[in-house]
C-alpha cells in the first residue's frame, strides 16, 4: 500500500496521517480549531447566559442633554 494523497482521498489520508504523522496531523487539527471556534463559541456562550461586559470608556462619557443647574462649591 502506497502513501495516500490528501487531495485524492482526504478521509483515507487523515486516517493514515493520524497514525503515521501524528504530530503534523494534530498540529493542524488544534491549529484549525481556534479560527473555527471564533464564530461558533460566542453564540453558545450567550445561550448559556454569559454576557459581554460593556466596553471600557476610552474618554470621559459626557452626558447628553441640557446641563443641570448646580449649586454648592461656589466661589
Amino acid at each position: 500500500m502506497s502513501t495516500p494523497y490528501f487531495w485524492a482521498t482526504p478521509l483515507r489520508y487523515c486516517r493514515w496521517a493520524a497514525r503515521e504523522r501524528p504530530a503534523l496531523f494534530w498540529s493542524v487539527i488544534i491549529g484549525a480549531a481556534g479560527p473555527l471556534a471564533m464564530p461558533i463559541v460566542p453564540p453558545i456562550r450567550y445561550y448559556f447566559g454569559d454576557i459581554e461586559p460593556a466596553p471600557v470608556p476610552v474618554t470621559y462619557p459626557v452626558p447628553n442633554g441640557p446641563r443641570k443647574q448646580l449649586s454648592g462649591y461656589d466661589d
Partner: protein
Amino acid sequence: MATRRSHFHQQVLVDTTPLPDDVPAVKEVGASSAPLLSASFFIGARCRDYNDDYMQCKTEKAGRGEFDCMKEGRRVTRCAQSVIKDINTHCLAEFRRHWECLDDRNQQLWQCRPAEWKLNKCVYENLKLEKKIPDQPANVTPVELRPKQIFADVRIGPGDGKPFAPSQSNAAKQ
C-alpha cells in the same frame, strides 16, 4: 554660579505665570496619585454632577472651555478637596493603609482588596459614599468584591476580612 533664583525644585515651586486677580483662587487638591486613585470612586460618587457639568461645559464651548468653564473647574477641584478632607477626617487610618498599599504595589487595585474593603466600609458608614464600578455585567460578581483576585501577588486569606458591599451587607442582616 548661576545668578538666577531657582523656581522649581524639591522644596520650592514658584508660579511664574500666576492667574490674574479677578479669577478666584482655588488651592490644589494636594494629593498625589495613589491617594487620588484610592479616593477616586468616592470622588466620583459625590462629584459626579460637577464633573459631568464641567465636561458638558467644555463640550458646549469647544475650543474656549479652558477660559469659559473656569467656574465649573473650580467646583470640580473644591468637590474633590471636600471628599479628601472628609475621608481624612473620618477614615484616615484605613485610607492611609489603602493608598500606601497602592503606592507599594504599582497602583494595582487588585493587590489591595482587603484594605480597600475596610476603606469602603468605613467610608460608607461615615460619608455614605459607595464604591460602584459602572457597567459591570450582571451575571458575575463585581471585580472589586471577589475574594479571589487572580492577578494578586498575595492570596487573600481568611483573616483579611470579607468583601464589603452596602447592598449585600443589608441583605445579610435581614
